Structure formats: structure tokens, C-alpha cells
């Protein structure tokens, strides 16, 4: 029997591709009449290129990547929309043993507190500058990534100018731990398991995590070639339902062992299942024997993790403006606003009678505790979603948010 829909998707070998991988490997796609073919890629540039020439209908992407495509920031860009988010959180900031020793001398503790660690890092950076040492070099996976923007957000909120006081370079995730061990970089922000890899090797310390810089914040998404989505609304809706069932399965602790075993296969991550467990349990070794369990470390489903909030896209947009990646104009703002498509998510999932947020946007950082919210269907809990510095992002007040960050930076 041939499936009703043939869908080809690209992914990078990172744990947060799990919802897409499980949709294919555990039959969620097949149950929706989809023959889903997955292709593992070696760079985000390849994913972008293969979407652009139509090899892939959709792909596992960095949250800001479709925005960068639509805003014309990358070569070979084709219009890309986001009807589904692959989860919240999952990243850490890891630093070398030398930098760790340096910030401990300035008051850092193995507690992942972004404010305390950032203050100590700032003190170390000023001390190094006074001694005429080279600026510290941090790596992220891509300029248009949640990693780059959350690292910069954390540093800037701690009084460190990421443009002038440190250097930021790009390193592919699997190479991060080696680059740190070899001294080519002093720290990095990446998803798991590449942080735990340095801790296990004894060459790094996890200093803070995405879930504490901005709790329940967006990370990877499903980016879809818009031309294909427009012509194949039924196939896309069927896929979104398959992804929904897959995400629910991935979130359930009873399935974590099986999920880790699937991701461990050579065609996906190709790493032992045990390496997958920290991201699933949120229990991390931090280095030097310290360990911590982090609430909401990575959510593939809970807290409306799959809903493509326009406020998430708009926050990425404000950070693109903040760091000079794009000019803030009405036209660009409109492009950013149209990129994430909660309408497609809602219409695909409506027949399932599941909890769906009623709004397309929310004020980010407004919930200090887990809160039941008004939604269609049964029980939906959101948050807490705070930024560590107590700031709030109101998508209706974008100009003020951008202006506020600009003047804060001028004061650094």
C-alpha cells in the first residue's frame, strides 16, 4: 500500500531532532498516511540549500533560521515558514577549566545561576583586559541561532559587551568539546550532549543553562518550504498531527529509554544511549563532581512546547536587530511576524480536540509560576517563563524593547 503523502525531511544529528526522528521510526507518520523519509545533514547551510532547491520539503532548523532566510540574510534563501516547534530549552554554556578557575576566584559557584556566573565572568574579563590578555573566545553553532542570541543576552545582561569584550566564533556542535580541550576556544553554547561531553572528558564546566537564562524558551523548529506548504496543505496537516503524537510520546518518561535507544542508532546521533539521558532527565553533571537537576531543562511537548508562538519569532527578530544582523523596519518586522504560523498548527490539531493556546503571541517573561491558561480543549499549563534578569518582552511594545536594549548597550 502506498502512503497518501510522500514527505522528505532533513535533520542535523542533534538530540532535539528527536520528535521528527520518532515520528518516522515509531510509526506516528505512517499512522497519518505519511511516507516520511529523513536525511541526515552535516551543516545548517546544507539544510538551507536542499530546502531551497526542493530536495527537502521541510527540515529540523534553528528557531531564527527561517527568519534569516525570509529576511534575506543568507545565500540561497527560499521562503520558509514555521508551523511547529520541536521543543523548549536544551542548551548549556560550557567553559574551560581555566576560565572556570578564573571565575570561581571572582565568586562563581557550581549552581548554574546565570547572574552570579555572569558577574564573575565580567570581573574575569576586565581583569584579563587590564593585564592585556587576548579576549576570551566563545563558540556558537550558527550566527542565526538561539545559542548565539541567548549567549549574547546573558552576557549583555551581566554588563559584558559580546561584540567588544569577547570574540564569538562558529564551531559545528560535534567539534565543540575538542575545540575546548585543545584551547582553540574558551567556552561555548550548544545543545546536549555536547556540554556533558566536555564534563565527562574532564575538560569543561557547565556554567549555566538556557532553561535558566530564559526558562521555557524556543530552540529548534520545523521549517517548511512555503511553496510546498501552499500546494500540500493536507500533507502538512497530517505531518503536524504525526509530530504532535510523536512529541507527546517523547515527553513521557516511560519512553525515555526507548527514545534514547532510537537516537543512539548510527543513522541518527550514533552515540551511546547513556549520553542521551541528561537532556531527557534534566539531571546534569556540571564538572568537578557538582551535579544539578534543572526544572524544564528540555521540553519536547509540555508547556505548549510545540506551539509556534509569534512572540518567539519576534524575540529572535529583536535580537537580530540588537546585534546588527538586520535593520529594524516596518517591512522586516512584518516578515518576522509572518514567519511562524500558529494558524496552521491550530487548524491541523483542532480535529484531535487537544489543548490549544487561544492567542498567537504572549508576553514573554510574564509568568513567574506555572499557570493554567485559557485554551481550547482540556488543560493547558504554561510557564514559568522568566528571563533571568527580570526583563519582560511584550511583542506589542517591540520598538520600546529594541530601544531599551540599544541604550543599555550604549551604556556598557
Amino acid at each position, binding site marked *: 500500500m502506498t502512503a497518501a503523502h510522500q514527505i522528505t525531511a532533513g535533520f542535523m544529528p542533534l538530540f532535539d531532532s528527536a520528535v521528527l526522528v520518532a515520528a518516522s521510526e515509531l510509526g506516528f507518520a505512517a499512522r497519518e498516511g505519511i511516507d516520511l523519509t529523513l536525511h541526515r545533514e552535516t551543516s545548517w547551510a*546544507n539544510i538551507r540549500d536542499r530546502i531551497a*532547491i526542493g530536495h527537502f520539503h521541510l527540515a529540523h532548523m534553528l528557531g531564527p533560521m527561517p527568519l534569516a532566510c525570509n529576511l534575506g540574510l543568507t545565500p540561497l534563501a527560499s521562503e520558509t515558514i514555521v508551523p511547529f516547534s520541536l521543543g523548549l530549552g536544551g542548551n548549556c554554556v560550557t567553559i574551560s577549566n581555566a576560565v572556570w578557575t578564573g571565575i570561581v576566584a571572582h565568586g562563581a559557584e557550581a549552581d548554574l545561576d546565570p547572574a552570579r556566573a555572569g558577574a564573575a565572568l565580567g570581573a574575569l574579563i576586565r581583569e584579563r583586559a587590564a593585564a592585556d590578555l587576548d579576549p576570551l573566545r566563545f563558540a556558537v553553532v550558527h550566527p542565526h541561532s538561539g545559542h548565539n542570541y541567548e549567549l549574547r543576552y546573558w552576557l549583555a545582561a551581566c554588563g559584558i559587551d559580546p561584540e567588544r569584550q569577547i570574540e564569538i566564533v562558529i564551531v*559545528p556542535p560535534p567539534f565543540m568539546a575538542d575545540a575546548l580541550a585543545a584551547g582553540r576556544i574558551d567556552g561555548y553554547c550548544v545543545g546536549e550532549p555536547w556540554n556533558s561531553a566536555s564534563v565527562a572528558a574532564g575538560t569543561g564546566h557547565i556554567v549555566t543553562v538556557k532553561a535558566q537564562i530564559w526558562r521555557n524558551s524556543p530552540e529548534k523548529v520545523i521549517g517548511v518550504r512555503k511553496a510546498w506548504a501552499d500546494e500540500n496543505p493536507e500533507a502538512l496537516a497530517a505531518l503536524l498531527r504525526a509530530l504532535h503524537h510523536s512529541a507527546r510520546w517523547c515527553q513521557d518518561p516511560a519512553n525515555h529509554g526507548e527514545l534514547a535507544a532510537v537516537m543512539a542508532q548510527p543513522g541518527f546521533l550514533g552515540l551511546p544511549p547513556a549520553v542521551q539521558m541528561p537532556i531527557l532527565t534534566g539531571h546534569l553533571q556540571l564538572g568537578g563532581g557538582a551535579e544539578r537537576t534543572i526544572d524544564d531543562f528540555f521540553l519536547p511537548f509540555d508547556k505548549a512546547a510545540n506551539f509556534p508562538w509569534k512572540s518567539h519569532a519576534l524575540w529572535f527578530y529583536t535580537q537580530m536587530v540588537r546585534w546588527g544582523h538586520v535593520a529594524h523596519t516596518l517591512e522586516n518586522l512584518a516578515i518576522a511576524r509572518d514567519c511562524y504560523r500558529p494558524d496552521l498548527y491550530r487548524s491541523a490539531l483542532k480535529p484531535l480536540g487537544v489543548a490549544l493556546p487561544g492567542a498567537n503571541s504572549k508576553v514573554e517573561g510574564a509568568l513567574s509560576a506555572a499557570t493554567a491558561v485559557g485554551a481550547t480543549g482540556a488543560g493547558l499549563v504554561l510557564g514559568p517563563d522568566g528571563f533571568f534578569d527580570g526583563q519582560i518582552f511584550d511583542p506589542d511594545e517591540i520598538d520600546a524593547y529594541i530601544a531599551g536594549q540599544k541604550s543599555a548597550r550604549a551604556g556598557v
Partner: protein
Amino acid sequence: MVRTALAVLVIDENRIRAAIIEAGLREAGHERVTVIHDVTGIARRIAEIEPDVIVIDLENPNRDMLENMFQLSRAVKRPIAMFVDRSDQASIEAAVDAGVSAYVVDGLRQERVKPILDMAVSRFNAFSRMARELEEVRGELESRKVIDRAKGILMKSRGLSEEAAYTLLRKTAMNQNRKIGDIAQSLVTAAGLLGPAEDE
């Protein structure tokens, strides 16, 4: 026609393929060709070489790093764009299908660069064909080795001549509509499981 020769940088971790590309470029009259296999410290190399054209294989996981570097004016003296961005759809598809990508400095005329990309695409395709053929030959050799071992097992355990052992394997393969190599592999595996019948 007097024109400054284009400086071409080939970034490819596969040394054999890089050598094939380099040879192609030199045959086409390009004298200023540099090949890099390892991207460590590449920013400095690019600053030294000042390439007009950069050819890179798509399997290289460092494409994101390189593209970011090309966009930072600090890192490169002249802005570098992705060649296929300014090219026709057919060229783009041919390049991606072949697994190659090219970046060029801004302002370089398309007709000067296109032959370089076309050459790279055809050499990449030739290399893939070669690699595939090599794989097939390797598979054949493997299967011949397995057949020899299976014959040995049959000769020893059933007292057959070499010819009779081979005939039995072939007949079984035909009856089961399978390849003789597969039958031989099954026999070798089974013999291994059943114990000391097989000698190494």
C-alpha cells in the same frame, strides 16, 4: 587577453578528490590553486591567499563557520558571496546534486567563475562514480572470499571436492533465488555458531 589569474582555494577533507579538482583546475590553465584539507586556522590562510573563488564540498561540517567568516568584514578583506546565489536554477541543482558549493568575491563576473564551478561539478561526479565502482569491486572481492570459506566448510564437513562444493552452493542459491554470496555468508555464519567445524 590579459587578465589577472584567478586565485582558487579548494577546501576538501578528501585528499584524493581534492587532488582531482586541483588537477582539473591546473589543466584548465589556473595556476594559482591552493588546496586545504583541514580548516584549523583557515581565517589566516584566507587572508594570505585572498582567493577569488572558494570551492568546498557540501559534506564539510564547517560550511556554517566559513559562511559566517565570509560575512564578517573583519575576517576577509573582500566580501564573499555564494556563487550559486547568482546563478541559474540548473547550475544550482547540478552543484548540490554533485555535492559541491562555490563562493566568489563580490563583483567577479559570472562567466569567469562558471567554468570553474562546472569543472568542479563534473569532477565531483566523476569521483563519486569512481568511489561507487570501488565499493562494488570491494564488495565482489569480499563475497569471493566468503564463497571460498563456505566451500572449505563444505569440503571438510561433507567430504566434497572443491568443484562439488561450489556446485552445491550455486544450486542452493538458484533454488532459493538468492545470491551465491548470501548463501555462502549464511553458511559461514551458521558454521561459526555451530562450533569448531570452521578453522581460521
